[in-house]
């Protein structure tokens, strides 16, 4: 019998969970500049995350999906993307949005239940957060098709979770990306959980990256807590896409350090030992210890940066909290290019109802 096909999936790691270099570092990682940049971005991301959770707990933000544990993936990928590349995020990529220029206050606006968090100038051609799981994979292929049809040298980056790889949209997207050789990079944040469902119940395939092989495209696994491994894979995949050399699937192996969202309680289903081992591998401490050991980052740098981050985040929170809600007419104003006559009537009713409520409110306040 002949072998018709034989595939393999590589796993790449440079700095391991003990902050030791196990693979010789590429040149850029032998100097401090980029690594420190990555570190600082991850720290601010984690600070922001803690703040957002605190806001939710005190009723000042809606349900929020934490980014704790995927900072390395988001920071490295967003940093390597050019302005012209297009980001197709899911709902856990606010760190990428921050790096691509979105104001933290606008990110809070989205999670605070306000559509304006999807409409900032900084987002340019990037898509807004995608909530229906895996649907964004096909949008990414459509965007990549547009890029290809117009002979542009841009890449599309599609973010998704491990759970999303089970939904038909994902293999459908890989398939068309392969057949049409689309300039798209799929990055799976394999954080081991889809709410309460562990990675092992999504698929018995040893890796998620190998799903690429079924579509005839490149797939690889990287340590999603190692900024160097991520940098190497993502940079190459982006370049391949821009050069018209086709799509790539990168499975970034990480760990969800938080509840699924603030509406979830992971203690119901996640053994504490699993979480503990997740924390032992997490990206920020790993890089901090490495930078310390190199003598590139000291206690005073840390203190200063934390202070700066805290202040920047507090300013964003203040701005968010001071943003008044949209007028009720906004429910109608973006539905169609031109509002149909029937809806103008409904709009008038909504506006007058809200004015009446406002008057009643003022009246009550005047009386008390």
């Amino acid at each position, binding site marked *: 019998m002949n072998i018709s096909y034989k595939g393999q999936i590589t796993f790449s790691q440079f700095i391991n969970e003990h902050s030791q270099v196990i693979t010789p570092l590429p040149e850029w990682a032998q100097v401090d500049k980029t690594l420190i940049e990555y570190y600082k971005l991850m720290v601010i991301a984690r600070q922001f995350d803690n703040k957002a959770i605190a806001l939710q707990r005190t009723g000042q933000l*809606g*349900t929020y999906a934490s980014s704790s544990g995927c900072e390395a993936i988001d920071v490295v990928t967003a940093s390597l993307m050019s302005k012209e590349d297009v980001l197709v995020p899911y*709902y856990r990529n606010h760190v990428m949005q921050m790096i691509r220029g979105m104001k933290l206050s606008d990110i809070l606006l989205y999670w*605070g*239940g*306000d*559509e304006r968090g999807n409409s900032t100038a900084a987002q340019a051609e990037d898509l807004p957060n995608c*909530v*229906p*799981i*895996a649907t964004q994979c096909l949008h990414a292929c459509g965007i990549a098709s547009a890029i290809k049809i117009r002979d542009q040298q841009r890449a599309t980056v599609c973010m998704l979770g491990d*759970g*999303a790889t*089970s*939904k*038909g*949209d994902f293999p459908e997207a890989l398939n068309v990306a392969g057949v049409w050789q689309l300039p798209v990079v799929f990055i799976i944040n394999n954080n081991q959980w*889809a*709410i*309460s*469902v562990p990675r092992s*119940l*999504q*698929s018995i395939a040893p890796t998620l990256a190998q799903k690429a092989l079924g579509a005839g495209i490149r797939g690889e696994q990287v340590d999603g807590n190692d900024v160097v491994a991520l940098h190497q894979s993502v940079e190459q995949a982006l370049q391949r896409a821009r050069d018209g050399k086709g799509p790539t699937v990168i499975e970034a192996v990480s760990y969800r350090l938080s509840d699924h969202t603030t*509406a*979830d309680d992971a203690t*119901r*289903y996640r053994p504490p030992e699993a979480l503990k081992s997740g924390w032992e591998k997490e990206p920020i401490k790993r890089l901090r210890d490495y930078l310390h050991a190199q003598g590139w980052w000291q206690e005073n740098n840390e203190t200063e940066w934390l202070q700066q981050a805290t202040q920047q985040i507090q300013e964003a929170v203040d701005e968010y909290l001071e943003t008044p*809600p*949209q007028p*009720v007419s*906004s*429910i*109608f104003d973006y*539905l169609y290019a031109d509002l149909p006559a*029937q*809806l103008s009537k*409904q709009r008038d009713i*909504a506006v007058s*109802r*809200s004015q009446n409520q406002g008057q009643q409110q003022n009246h009550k306040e005047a009386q008390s």
Partner: protein
Amino acid sequence: MKSEEAICMVEAINLALHRAMQDDADVILLGEDVATNGGVFRATVGLKEAFGIKRVMDTPLAENMIAGLTVGMAVQGLKPVAEIQFMGFIFPAMEQIVCHAARMRNRTRGRLSCPLVIRAPYGGGIHAPEHHSESTEALFAHIPGLRVVTPSSPQRAYGLLLAAIQNPDPVIFLEPKRIYRSQNQHVEDNGKALPLDTCFTLREGSDISLISWGSMIKETLEAASQLADEDIQCEVIDVATLNPIDRETLLASVGKTGRCVIIHEAPITCSVGSEIASILATEALLDLRAPIARVGGYDTVMPYFRLEDQYMPHTDQIVDAVKRTLEFN
């Protein structure tokens, strides 16, 4: 679970699932996060522990797969009860529901059938993220071969869910999550199903009929009791099964009162309310003494939650609609 205590709707659903699984070994449960986690709203808590992972299954994340599996299980004679985590994520399952579940009996001339239930929490009012608050019951009510059922109290949730599971045809069982925990009732765990395809008259009155379902029953009952203080007697009808609709109860009520308001959360256009208005207009025209009034959602996308409250119909709108209808001569 102790049935002597007053329980809320989500507990009543849980109780019905326990009872159905206890009474019938063919009843099995599947969905995302239903087994170990007990469902994101806790509706399936304890079932995995009671009946094991062969009958209570956490599935991979894929709604089309879930619906397709239930079709296959059902044609084998199992009675699958699938949970779609939120109604906003049911759309990948549409093909399986519409092209297969709803028509298996018909296309095999009764050789095969689909005694399946698809449960999904629906509706707004809990400040959820986008896609978690819509009311798209009309999409299902439009499909021949499906039953669409929605309860409005713990007792009806228990009885109607048992009925849905026992029913030999596919049932879309929509759970109004805004009232999952808003009312506690004593629910007797007697295994008794309530009838499907019948409306429930929750309050009798002679002046006007208020027709609603799901979570809006709460505001409708509030409006009725406020209006009673002004000596206006409202009849409140919970439609409960949105397809097939029990026309007799609606026609009899409007025959008596001559006036009606239809109340729901979904956008007004092409809604189940439109169908009810059409039934009344075609079959009760001579009984009507005022135009049919409607209180519903705007024909817009459900806004993110900061403006959600402005979208949802409120009690005062129902009261106003009743008064306008009564003033009509």
